[in-house]
C-alpha cells in the first residue's frame, strides 16, 4: 500500500485539535509580539535618540512590558460620569478584536505533514484559507474605525471627539488608497486567497531573473509604496498619528480612558501594526518564501516592516489634518487608480 496523504478534513478530531492549536499559537505569538513590540520600540527609538530605553525592570529592561501591563491592570478604572457607558466600555474591545481576527487568514508557513495512525495528513500553517482572504482583511480593517469613533463619541469630551472625527476621516480615506493598491496585486495573482497569493510569488522573478524572487514588491513597487503609506495611516502611526496627537489633542480619542481599557488601546495599536506588517509581508514580500524555515522567513519580514514603522516614528514630524486629507485624496487615490489601469493594460498585453 502506498502511503496516503490526505487533507485534515478527513479526520474531524484531528481537524479540531489542529485548529485549536493553530489558533492558540497564533494568538499567543501575536500577543507576545505585541508586548515585546513596545519594548523593542522603546529600545530602538532610544538608541536613535541617544537614550537608553527601559533598563530597570529585569535584564536590559526585558520585563518592562509585563510591569507596564501589571501597573495598568491595577489602576483604578475611571468611567467619566457624563460618558455613554455601554459604548465607552465596548470601544476598546471593538478596536482590538478586528486587529486580532485579521491574523486568521494570514499564512505563516509551508504545509507540514503529520502522520497519524499510519495515515499522513497535510496541515496548512494558516488558521483558515478563505478564498476571499483579502476582502475579509479589508472588511476587518474597516471595522476597526468604529472602535475609535465610538471611543471618541462615548467619552463625551471635546478632545476625544476631535480625535474620533480625525481618525474616522483619516482611516476611511487611507483605506481606499491602501485597498486600491491591493487590487493591483490580485490582478496579477488572479486569486483573492492569501495562500494563493503567496504561492504565486514563489520562484524566480518573471520566471527569468534567477537572483531575485518573484515578489510583488518588484512587479508592483508603486502599489507597495501606497500600501505602506496607507497602512501607516490606518494604524495611526507617525507621521499620521493625528487622532492621538499628543501635543494637540492631549491623547485624542483615548484621553478619558484609564486602566485596562487604556492598555487595550495600546495593545490594539501594536496588534494592528503586526497585522498590517503581516499583510504587507504576505502580499508584497512573498510571505513564507525565503532561505530559512517558512515561519522564520515570515517573522523576519514582519519584524522588518515593524522596524520600518518604528524608524519612521523617530524621524518624521506630524502632518496637519488638511494636508493629510489632501495627500490621501489628491495624491494617493489617483496614483492607486492609475496603477490599476497600468497593471490592467500590462496584464492584457502579456496574455
Amino acid at each position, binding site marked *: 500500500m502506498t502511503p496516503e496523504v490526505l487533507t485534515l478534513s478527513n479526520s474531524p478530531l484531528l481537524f479540531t485539535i489542529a485548529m485549536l492549536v493553530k489558533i492558540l499559537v497564533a494568538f499567543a505569538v501575536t500577543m507576545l509580539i505585541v508586548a515585546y513590540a513596545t519594548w523593542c520600540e522603546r529600545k530602538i*527609538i532610544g538608541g*536613535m*535618540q*541617544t*537614550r537608553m530605553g527601559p533598563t530597570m525592570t529585569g535584564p536590559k529592561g526585558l520585563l518592562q512590558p509585563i510591569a507596564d501591563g501589571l501597573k495598568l491592570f491595577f489602576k483604578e478604572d475611571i468611567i467619566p460620569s457624563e460618558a455613554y457607558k455601554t459604548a465607552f466600555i465596548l470601544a476598546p474591545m471593538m478596536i482590538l478584536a478586528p486587529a486580532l481576527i485579521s491574523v486568521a487568514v494570514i499564512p505563516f508557513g509551508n504545509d507540514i505533514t503529520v502522520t497519524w495512525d499510519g495515515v499522513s495528513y497535510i496541515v496548512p500553517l494558516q488558521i483558515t484559507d478563505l478564498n476571499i482572504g483579502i476582502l475579509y482583511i479589508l472588511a476587518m480593517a474597516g471595522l476597526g474605525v468604529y472602535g475609535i469613533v465610538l471611543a471618541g463619541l462615548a467619552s463625551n469630551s*471635546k*478632545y476625544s471627539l*476631535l480625535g474620533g472625527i*480625525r481618525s474616522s476621516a483619516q482611516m476611511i480615506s487611507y483605506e481606499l488608497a491602501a485597498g486600491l493598491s491591493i487590487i493591483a496585486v490580485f490582478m496579477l495573482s488572479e486569486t483573492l486567497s492569501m495562500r494563493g497569493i503567496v504561492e504565486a510569488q514563489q520562484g524566480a522573478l518573471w520566471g527569468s531573473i534567477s537572483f531575485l524572487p518573484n515578489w510583488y514588491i518588484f512587479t508592483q513597487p508603486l502599489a507597495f509604496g501606497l500600501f505602506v503609506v496607507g497602512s501607516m495611516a490606518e494604524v495611526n502611526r*507617525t*507621521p499620521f*498619528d*493625528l487622532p492621538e*496627537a*499628543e*501635543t*494637540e489633542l*492631549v491623547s485624542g480619542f483615548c484621553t478619558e480612558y484609564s486602566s485596562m481599557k487604556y492598555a487595550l488601546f495600546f495593545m490594539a495599536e501594536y496588534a494592528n501594526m503586526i497585522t498590517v506588517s503581516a499583510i504587507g509581508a504576505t502580499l508584497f514580500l512573498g510571505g513564507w518564501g525565503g532561505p530559512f524555515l517558512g515561519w522564520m522567513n515570515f517573522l523576519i519580514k514582519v519584524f522588518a516592516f515593524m522596524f520600518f514603522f518604528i524608524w519612521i*516614528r*523617530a*524621524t*518624521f*514630524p*506630524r*502632518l*496637519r*489634518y*488638511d*494636508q493629510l486629507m489632501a495627500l490621501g485624496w489628491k495624491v494617493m487615490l489617483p496614483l492607486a487608480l492609475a496603477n490599476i489601469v497600468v497593471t490592467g493594460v500590462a496584464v492584457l498585453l502579456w496574455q
Partner: protein
Amino acid sequence: MAFNTETMTINMGPQHPSTHGVLQLILELDGEVVQKATPHIGFLHRGTEKLSEHRTYHQVIPLTDRLDYLAPMSNNLGYVLAVEKLLGITDQIPERAKVIRVMMAELTRLKSHLVWLACHALDIGAMTVFLYCFRERENIMDFYEKISGARMTSNYFRVGGLSADLPEGIEAEIRAFAESMHGHVETYEGLLTGNKIWQKRTQGVGIISKEAAIDIGLTGASLRASGVDWDLRRDNPYSGYEDYDFVVPVREECDTWARYHVRLEEMRQSARLVLQALDKLQGLQGAPILADCPQICLPPKQDVVNTIEGLIHHFKIITEGFKPEPGEIYQGVEAPKGELGYYLVSDGSPRPLRMKIRPPSFVNLQALPQMVEGKMLADVVAVIGTLDIVLGEIDR
C-alpha cells in the same frame, strides 16, 4: 437644506502638553478651524515687580533668575546693567567681567534657543530633535553649574561685575562645545529643514506682517523674521557688544519657517560670539572681575574673614545695600526671546521705588490671536512654539 451648526469652544490649557507652561487658550473651533483664540495668562504670577520694592538692589537679582527660567543669565544681565546705569558706574565695569557677561549671555541664548527648537519640533511631532537639543543643552547646564553653582537659577552677575571668577579649565570646555555647536545645528537642520512635512507644517503658517509686528511691539527673532532689521546688541550695544563681529539674520517671509531659520542662524552666531569672547578672555587672565566701587561692591572674601575692616565693609553692604541717586532709567537688552527691558525708579533709598519689567514673551504673545485665527487647530501649537514664549516672564 440648512444645517443648524454651532462653533465649539475648547479650553486649551493650563494643563495641556504644548502650551509651554500654564498658558490657557480659549479656542472657538469650527470643525478644526480656529475662529477665535483668547489667551488667558496669570497662572504663574508671583509678583516679582512688587517683591522687588521690598528688597535691596542686590537681593532682586535672584528674583530675575525666575522670569524667563530658560535664560536666567540674560535676565540677570538686563537687571545689573539697569542698576549700573542708575548708579552711573557703567563705564567702570572691568573688561574681564564684561567679556564673561557676553559669553554667558550668548551661552544662555544658545540654551534658550535649544529648548525652543526642541519643544517646537516636538509640538509638530518630530521627537528625535527634541532629545538631540536637550543633549546639547545639558552641556550648557553643566557650564552653568560649574560657573555659578546652579543649573537653572544662576544668580551669577553682580552689580559692578560678577560674583566669582570662572573656575579653572572651563574655558577649554566651553571652547570645545562652541566649536562643536556648528555641527550640531547641521544635524538639526538635517532632520528638519529638508523634510517635506516640516516644510508643509511651517511655511505660510503663523504669518505676521512687518507693519503688524511693529504695531504690536514684537521683538527678537519674530521681528527679524518679519523683515525688520533690529537687534539691540548691534543697534544699541551694551556690555561691549560693539567689539564683536556677528551677523544679525533677517528674513522676509514672516512665517514660522522664517522664524525657524532666523533662530537657527542666531544659534550659529551665538557660538561664534562665545568663541570671540573666549579669545578676548585669553588676554585678560587674572584681571579684576568686580568694579572698584567700595560703596557698591562686596570686598574680596579673604578680606571679610581675615580683617575687621573687610568684615564691617561686607556687613554694611549686606545689611544696608547701596543708595542710588533719585532718578529713573530704562535699560533694554536683547534677551533670547526679544527685548527684555528693566525700568527702575529710585527715590534715594537702598530699595527700588518701582521696578517695571518689559518681558519679551508678554508682548510677543499678543501676536498669537491674529496669527492663528482662521487657521487649523494643529497650527495653534506650531504658532505657540514659534513665538517661543515662557510663562515665567509673561506672568512675572
